[in-house]
Structures are given as structure tokens and as C-alpha cells.
């Protein structure tokens, strides 16, 4: 592979600019303008005083996970493991089991997320084909004083959850019943 050299010419600077002092003055004028403005009026200050003032999270903020449920209150998750496969932090542990209801067939007997290990990337939500896992709880993952408390199991995740009636594989009108 041939090495090519591109010469980038130095920018042309007038003597005025090159003499540095006027440019420094120009810079100083900007910083001092800001300084005095904020010294007397605090007008441009953007800091949010966190514990006292809380900022509203944007709608798509990724907070603590939650598991959604069906109309009848059953967990929507079918233990397909798409989320745990997609999870780059390997922090989702699912154990699938056979459901008594043959129309549900498969459900997660165990569903644990290690929120400490989670890197809050949202891949799990992206991967879920069933709209079963969401991160829209809006709850900032709080610190944990003990590691075990960072394991969110199925009941804990369901507690945050809400109903979702999205149809698997898109909107299927009038699904016929089973035999």
C-alpha cells in the first residue's frame, strides 16, 4: 500500500492575529462578558441543583427495567432469551418453563436482571419480540448497599410493569380461537 502524504497548509494569519495579544484580548472580552453576566445575574447558568431540583427525564429515558403483562395479568415474556442473548453485559438470567395454558406454552419461571451489572444499553428492549421488557419506568437505577438487592427478580420487575396489548408479530386482526 502506497503511503500518500497530504500537505495541509498552515492557516494564513495576519500580523494582527499573529501578534497574539489582540486575540487574547478578544478571548478575554468573551470570557469576561460571561463572567460579569453570571456574577451579577446568573442568567446563563445552566446547572440544575440536583437533589433539590430534579430534571424531568426525556420520554425515551432508559430507567429500571420492567416486565409487562398481558390483559389477564400474566407475564408477557415468553422466555425466548432474545434479551439475554442480546445483552452485552450478560446480566439477564432466564429459566424457561412450560405453562399450563397451552396458548401461552412457555413462560419464564425465573427472570432475574442484575441491575448492577446492567450497562443500561437498552439492547434487551430492542431485542424483545413480545414487548415484554421495557426500560421506560423512568426510575433512575439507585445505588445498592448490598449486591443481592441489585438482583431484580420477576415479581419486582412485574411490579413496575404495566399491561401491554401489542400483538405478537404485529397487528393481527381477529385471531381465531384454538380447536
Amino acid at each position, binding site marked *: 500500500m502506497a503511503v500518500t502524504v497530504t500537505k495541509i497548509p498552515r492557516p494564513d494569519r495576519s500580523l494582527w492575529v499573529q501578534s497574539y495579544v489582540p486575540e487574547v484580548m478578544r478571548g478575554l472580552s468573551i470570557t469576561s462578558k*460571561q463572567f460579569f453576566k453570571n456574577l451579577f445575574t446568573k442568567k446563563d447558568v445552566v*446547572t440544575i441543583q440536583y437533589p433539590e431540583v430534579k430534571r424531568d427525564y426525556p420520554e425515551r429515558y432508559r430507567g429500571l427495567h420492567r416486565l409487562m403483562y398481558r390483559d389477564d395479568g400474566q407475564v408477557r415474556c415468553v422466555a425466548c432469551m432474545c434479551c439475554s442473548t442480546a445483552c452485552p453485559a450478560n446480566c439477564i438470567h432466564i429459566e424457561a418453563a412450560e405453562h399450563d395454558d397451552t396458548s401461552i406454552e412457555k413462560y419464564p419461571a425465573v427472570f432475574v436482571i442484575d441491575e448492577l451489572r446492567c450497562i443500561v444499553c437498552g439492547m434487551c428492549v430492542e431485542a424483545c419480540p413480545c414487548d415484554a421488557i421495557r426500560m421506560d419506568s423512568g426510575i433512575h437505577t439507585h445505588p445498592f448497599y448490598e449486591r443481592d438487592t441489585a438482583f431484580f427478580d420477576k415479581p419486582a420487575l412485574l411490579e413496575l410493569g404495566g399491561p401491554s396489548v401489542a400483538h405478537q408479530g404485529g397487528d393481527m386482526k381477529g385471531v381465531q380461537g384454538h380447536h
Partner: protein
Amino acid sequence: MLTDILLILLKIVAVVLLFAMPIGSLMTLLGDRKQSSMIQNRVGPNRARLSIIPGLGRLPLVGIPHFLADGLKMIFKEDAIPDGADRTWHNIVPAMALFPAIVMWAVIPFHDHYCTGEIVVQNYRDICVEGQTRNFFSIANLDAGLLYVFAISGVSVYGAAIAGWASNAKYSLIGGLRSSAQMISYEVSMALSVAGAILIYGTLNLNEMVVQQGHLIGGWLPMWGIVVQPLAFFIFLGAMMAETKRAPFDMPEGESEIVAGYFTEFSSMKFAVIQLSEYVATVFVGALIATIFLGGWQVPYLYGDGFHFGNTPTAALELPYWAVIALRIGAFSFKTIFILWLQFMLRWTLPRFRYDQVMNLGWKIFLPLSLANLVITAFVVAIL
């Protein structure tokens, strides 16, 4: 004799503990943190509280308690000395850094000599008649005052260089080397740039310099150093900032490359002392520039007995002597703090230099310019 010694001690205490150190630590912390926060549209530190003092409760006090909290924290930090470090030097070096920064204050005049008798103003000068002049307002009134400053600031390079060496760490060593190279380079143009001012004032005594700056050119323009030596002012300011290793000249502690440079391996109070010495030196730069270029304790048109507009023997607005003294010390403090503010302003305005740029600036720009300045000044002084 005894009173003299007591007086000197008192002055030392006053200068160091009431001026240099408080301004050094408090103003610089405020300047470093609060000032930068305002430039950057933040609020800056405001979490530490002095709630142990009744009545202060949860007042943020513009972040001042943070500097107390910092001190407290520093005291309780572990003092770690790296393996293989030279323990003796490692322990001594913070003191070596602080010592010159404080000792330099000895020659700074806060006011003219105190006059026990009547003051007559002649030719923009206070002449003390029927009385003695007493040196109350500087620790030592040295005739070679400016040389003393240069001598001591030459010594201050040891602090950084030895700190870097004694830590037995690569970053520290690089920091130490950088600081010695940088400080020595800038000392040259620093001294040469004020040489012009020395020529004009014809003295090395700092108080005498200030006295001479009371002169009004054409009866209205104060003959401050910045007026007669504008180029020298900029060079001196730049060189002094480089001397104190402040941004944009903070190569020796360049965080992005060498962690914290020569004091990387210092912790606890030793770290605090090194930091403090830098801050005190920064304040000293303010005081020195104020003295040489901004008329020191001079207030324009104010002389020993009141305001004179033009070269008149009687004051247009008479003031008692104590009021004059108060005004002048106030003016001096104000100028010092202004230069301090300016230094911080520059620090938060300018991006850092590259090390070769620092050296270029020192040797290829400041040095020739200050030499030219000296030659021209010499000609002008000779002609006049």
C-alpha cells in the same frame, strides 16, 4: 532594637497571615472555582456548609466553606510516599516550594514610609518635613528590592525540580524537568523586561519605584509602568505567569500527559502546601506587577495630604493622613486582586501551549522583544 524586631515580626505576620495567605488560598480558590464556573455558565462549588456556626445554617456562602473543607480533608488524608522515593527530600520539598513564595513578600511596599511629621507635596512627591520616616508598610525596604525578588524566584525552581526528582516516578521527573526548563527560560525575559522600568525609575527599590509612579505626565497622566513601558508589562505578565506555572503555561503539571507533574506523588498536607505555594506565588505576581506597572499603592492624584490635580503645592481636596493610608493600601489590594483576576481570566480563556511553543515564546519572542524594549528605552532615557 527590640521594638524593631517586634515590628518586623508584626509586619511579617500581617503580610503573610493577613494578606498573602488569605488572598492566596481564599481568592485563588474562589478565583479558580467560582470564577471559572461563571465563565463556563456553571454555579461552581456551593455544597459545603458552615452549619456548625449558628445562624449560618444551610447558606452556601458562595462556596467559601469549600476551602475550609478542603483543608480539613487534606489534613486527614494519608500521606503516601512512593516506594523508592527519597524520603528526606520528599518531606522537605513542600517547604522548599512554599518558602520562596512567602519570602518574596518581604520587599513589597504596601504604602510609602510612614511620616511622623508634616507632609509637603512637591513635584508629585510626599516630602516629610519636621519628622522622621518610618518603614511600617513593607517588611524590608531593600535598595536592591527587585534583585532580591529575582534571586528568590530563581530559588523557587528547586522546589519543583526536587519534588519531581524525589518522588521516584517518571511523571514527576518529567514534570520537574519541564518546570525547571520553563522557569529558567522565562526568568531571562522577566528580568530583561523590567530592566527598562529600572532604567526609567533609576532605582531597584520597589517603594521608590512606586513613589516615582506618582508623577503625572503633562500634569494629568499618571506615570505608571504600564504607561511608560506597555510592552514590558505584557512581557512581564506573560513571563510571570510562566514562572508560576499557571495555565496556559501549566506544562509542568500537564494533567493530560503527566497526571499532575512534579507533585503527582504528593498527598495530604504536603500536596496542600505545594498547592498553596503556587497560589501564594500567583498572588505575589499580582502584587509585584501592581507595584512595578500599576503604580503600587498610588491612587491617581492622591498624595500625602489629599488630592492634587496637577503639580500644585496645595491639595485640591484635603484628606487626613490615615485616610490617605487606607485609600492607598486599598488601592494596592485592589490592583493586586485585579491582576490576580486577570491571571485567572487568562487561565480560563487560553488553551494550553505545547511545550515547544512555550519554549519558542520564551526564547524567540519574549527575549528579543524585551531586549528591543530595553534598547529603545535606553535610547529614549538617554535622549531625554
